[in-house]
């Protein structure tokens, strides 16, 4: 089984620790995964803003970087969703069906762990009160269901509290966050209020882009709530504590 990790452009440049956590976790589970260095981005920022011509070379780089792998795992529901559901659109634009061939092999992290590796207990230790936000693309575009929750429930020391209105969008939405900044922050403010209501110390999600937005709001509100990616939680062990 040849496995590659799609670290994603946001993790690569802003949240490198999440990429490191994925490798630490996979190694612990006996998976020797590659980081194809030719990888860049899934193309979603261009596709979702309507710039299909601009997305073509990015998706071409993606298809090139990940050709030849059986599975591609990524700590992002949004990028996995984009690869699976949008690369066809870009391939049609480019008139090159090969651009859509790698998309179906991409799995969001919790899907890969539960569906491909068949594990729900990854031997993690994270002694904190945690609430979980299921990001929209994980939830609706991919349909990961309760896989992330199954994984979190198996983490030792973790106290999981339910987030009110969990399935409502946080308001990030890529360029929506700046094109409609007022609406975006209004949505995020309500989500942040729900997070604070839980009394959790840590907000966990499977997408650092949503956490970038929510963490930015929670910080501005001086809430004291820390945002942590699911991969970082699952990679944590007693030695880290």
């Amino acid at each position, binding site marked *: 089984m040849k496995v590659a990790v799609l670290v994603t452009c946001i993790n*690569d440049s*802003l949240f490198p620790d999440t990429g490191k956590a994925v490798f630490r976790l996979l190694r612990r589970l006996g998976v020797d995964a590659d*980081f194809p260095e030719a990888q860049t*981005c899934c193309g979603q920022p261009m596709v979702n803003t309507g710039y299909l011509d601009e997305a073509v070379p990015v998706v071409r780089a993606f298809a090139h970087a990940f050709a030849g792998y059986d599975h591609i795992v990524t700590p992002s529901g949004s990028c996995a969703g984009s690869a699976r559901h949008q690369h066809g659109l870009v391939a049609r634009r480019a008139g090159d069906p090969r651009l859509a061939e790698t998309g179906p092999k991409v799995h969001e992290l919790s899907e890969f762990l539960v569906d491909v590796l068949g594990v729900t207990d990854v031997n993690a230790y994270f002694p904190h009160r945690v609430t979980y936000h299921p990001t*929209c693309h994980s939830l609706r575009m991919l349909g990961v269901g309760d896989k992330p929750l199954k994984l979190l429930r198996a983490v030792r020391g973790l106290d999981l509290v339910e987030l009110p209105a969990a399935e409502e969008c946080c308001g990030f939405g890529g360029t929506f966050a700046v094109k409609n900044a007022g609406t975006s922050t209004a949505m995020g403010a309500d989500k942040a209020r729900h997070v604070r209501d839980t009394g959790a110390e840590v907000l966990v999600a499977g997408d650092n882009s949503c956490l970038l937005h929510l963490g930015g709001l929670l910080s501005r509100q001086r809430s004291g709530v820390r945002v942590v990616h699911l991969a970082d939680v699952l990679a944590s062990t007693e030695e880290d504590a």
Partner: protein
Amino acid sequence: MPAFPVAAREALADTQLRRNLAHATGTIRAKRAAVVGEVAEWEELRLAGAAIKDNTLRRLDEHLLTLEAALQARGATVHWARDAREACAVVAGIARDHGVDEVVKVKSMATQEIGLNEVLAEHGVTAWETDLAELIVQLGDDLPSHILVPAIHRNRAEIREIFRREMGAAGRPAPDGLTDDPAELAGAARLHLREKFLRAKMAVSGANFAVAESGTLVVVESEGNGRMCLTLPEVLVSVVGIEKVVPTWSDLDVFLQLLPRSSTGERMNPYTSAWSGVTPGDGPQEMHVVLLDNGRTRALADEVGRQALRCIRCSACLNVCPVYERTGGHAYGSVYPGPIGAILNPLLKGVGVDEQTDSLPYASSLCGACFEACPVRIDIPEVLVHLRSQVVDAHRGGAPKPEAVAMKAASWVLSDARRLGLAERGLGVANRALTRFGRRVLPGGRRALSRLPWPGSLWTDARDLPAPPRESFRSWWRKEKR
């Protein structure tokens, strides 16, 4: 109308409006979820609804001709209208021929779409809305904010004020001592409207469905005011979008199950009225049907966008949309607000025509809640992205906007790992410079930036931004793994 982000600003600042909207959509959402949950085969019903609409749209011309022939055989007059101007002219002409100076209306989105009330007013004809919520909107000299609950943005106290202030000028005044008790408000509207129903010679309606095989128009409603409109006046004119046709009564069956549960969260509509042609001595003695295109064939020609014509105007997508819940319907600048409006308006009008229409496909975070709720499975996020690409393509060639320049640059950087690596090294350098200004520290210890110049200010006006790391993942991998 201003573009969406500008129009939304007003609503976002109106805390009362935000509370009204959150309360109303939350209530309908819960009701809908409960009654949809009762139907074990809901997913099959959705698939059936989508398939019937798609099959009908594929041979729309044939079904419309069948409808026309069946309507004519039952004594109705059929008019075809290519656009708003033609449709309004037909209705105004009928009013003129009968010498009426007022008409009663049962809620019709199509007549709002074509601006019929305004055109009738130019011809000296007053149109009275008889749906309770539409009446509130009309008396308040306001615009509808929701497809199903046009006055969703108003609370009881506001409605009482509107009735007391405006009813007298439009007919029977509000009773003395009117309170904001819902039953009293409904009673005042009932008395006010009854006077109009009994006086009007002509009515204008829309239709939820048009059954081709029998030439039957169908209106579903909750109050019975529609039925008064459809049965009391002598002349009845119905303005019907051409996508409303369903081939047979058994097709209609599927939608009469999907619509009420999706829209009002009820198992069945309180009033379902169906009429075919005229019956001497009973009901309207003259029936006209205006079959309206007004951009629908344009939408039909759009391979991805045509699925929007499946819409049965249930407003389930509005009630689950987190953007709609914050901005209300007015921000969409159209009779069709919310997620469906964000795709329907550009499809009907075409993109690249005006800034307001072009802003609508971007009025979404693409969260997908609308697709999940849609009873005819319109993949609204897919159409939104498709329309965004049309907006971008419509503006290619001219002077590039800053956004287009940024996207081109991002595409150049992100299509080559070496370039991305260099850009990330730049971020590492920026880290050293920026963190000097990043006084804030995020929980967990990372530094944050809280005030960036434009366009970064669009982010940092309300959100802190974690300072870029000193080292990208890529760079770490090179050092550690090689």
